[in-house]
């Protein structure tokens, strides 16, 4: 066990391991590229939907259930399915990562909006705000903590799952996990897994920082 940890430490710290196309630095960039793009696209799809159903209160039942259904989709199955239908490209990776992130963001956005006190919305209308003004100036700011939590959750899940890119021949940190398994190189597997874990935690902390920044000055109960 100690031997393994020693090997792992030297794998992670050796200079050549970090350079070149198969090096850790390049794999890290690839991993971030897959994860960031997928999360951004997912947010662009999910935020408007979540806001719309949260604001109107219509379609909530359908949307929330569809989202739960989406959460149950096995990612490997989805990747294989899109691969078989569309061939060898990054589409299977992006489609399955987006499909993984969208439900989380929708349900959290909707839940945040739905939790806004109806009396506050009534009061906003009472002082003469229009529908869209209520949405942007009252509902969204109040729902922001939950919306941000949704985005954080989605980001962490996507980073952890982006290892799937290696399953269909692409890069990212998953390359070490898959290649290590295939070559029975336990150190490489552990190294890859550890890097993914560190990246996911770092992203969560960074987004947590952003969240605190956005919610500065609010009472603790409203964060």
């Amino acid at each position, binding site marked *: 066990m100690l031997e393994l940890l020693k090997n792992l430490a030297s794998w992670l710290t050796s200079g050549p391991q970090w350079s070149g196309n198969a090096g850790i630095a390049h794999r890290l960039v690839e991993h971030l590229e897959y994860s960031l793009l997928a999360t951004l696209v997912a947010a662009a799809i999910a935020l408007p939907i979540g806001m719309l159903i949260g604001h109107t209160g219509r379609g909530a039942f359908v949307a929330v259930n569809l989202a739960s259904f989406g959460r149950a989709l096995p990612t490997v199955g989805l990747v294989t399915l899109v691969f078989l239908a569309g061939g*060898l490209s990054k589409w299977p990776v992006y489609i399955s990562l987006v499909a993984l992130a969208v439900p989380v963001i929708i349900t959290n956005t909707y839940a945040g909006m739905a939790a806004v006190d109806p009396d506050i919305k009534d009061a906003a209308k009472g002082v003469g705000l229009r529908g869209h003004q209520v949405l942007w100036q009252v509902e969204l700011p109040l729902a922001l903590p939950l919306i941000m939590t949704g985005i954080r959750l989605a980001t962490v899940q996507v980073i952890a799952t982006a290892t799937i890119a*290696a399953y269909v021949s692409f890069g990212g940190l*998953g390359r070490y996990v898959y290649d290590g398994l295939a070559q029975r190189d336990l150190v490489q597997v552990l190294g890859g897994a550890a890097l993914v874990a560190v990246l996911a935690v770092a992203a969560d902390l960074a987004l947590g920082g952003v969240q605190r920044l956005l919610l500065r000055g609010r009472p603790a109960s409203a964060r």
Partner: protein
Amino acid sequence: MKKKLPMTKKLPMNRRTALTALFAGASAPLLAACSSGITSLDGDGSGGDTGSSSGGLTIGTANFTENQILGYLYAGVLKAAGIKTTVKPNLGSREIIVPALKGGDIDLLPEYQGSLLLYLDKNAKDTEAGAMQNALAAVLPASLEVLPYAIAEDRDSFAVTRETAEKYGLKTLADLTKANGKLVFGAAAEMQKRVVGVVGLKDVYGVEFKEFKALDSSGPLVKGALKKGDVDVANVFTTDVDVAANKWVVLEDPKSLVPAQHIVPLIAARKADGKVRKALARLGNVLTTSELTELNRLVDQDKKDPDRVADAWLKKNGLVSA
């Protein structure tokens, strides 16, 4: 992702490849349940009856179709020889079953020469069937024995589509040099660093690919990619039903780069008496690679039960009485 660690596999054992590996975490408790089941059913698994099959045999199989069919074929011919058998299908990968055999939980296992040899000896160099049989006998512990190998073989091979074969005039692996730097090679990730893969193709035949794509071994990914033209050369097993169905051309291997993978019974020595040897040898001399492929097709494509498929084939070939 860390859950996948215990399921590292080799050659034909990784038929279900990464999919299985990913679900390994989920199946681990199941396997544990299986092995405890074996112990209780085996009764005298401790080796009380030396060199005799009179106490009956427990046959284990790995977690893919072909190995299960072979397990039932073994059971069929042994039963016909008057030996009591129990089949424990789907026990998992070699890393789980071979230790179970050593521990006496199971007595007999359908194995593959090359993969078994590499499992037992990482540095094994033999690729020819006869030499491998000797090498196997040398590395196995005294309690285990390999019986004579069968005609049927499930080997790694390299296939191209008929169009590609015609375009470049490809018949053997050596012909691939005609298209050096032009073809994309799709295979499981391990093939990139293995002698049976990119390394050997370059060293032995001088083949250089344009690109290597890490997909799977004879699985849905690499076959799908070959079908769509995303890869030009694909790693497929000789008993894969899709090879014939798609009229793919399997490139010949005149320099024996790929180790032989004849099917070979791995048995606990204490159970290997004359009756068992004779029955299994007879089966091995009748079952061919193409027939085994057909049996795989009946199970994988026609969704028939492996035990029924095995039974019907044994009857048809007169190995058991109808």
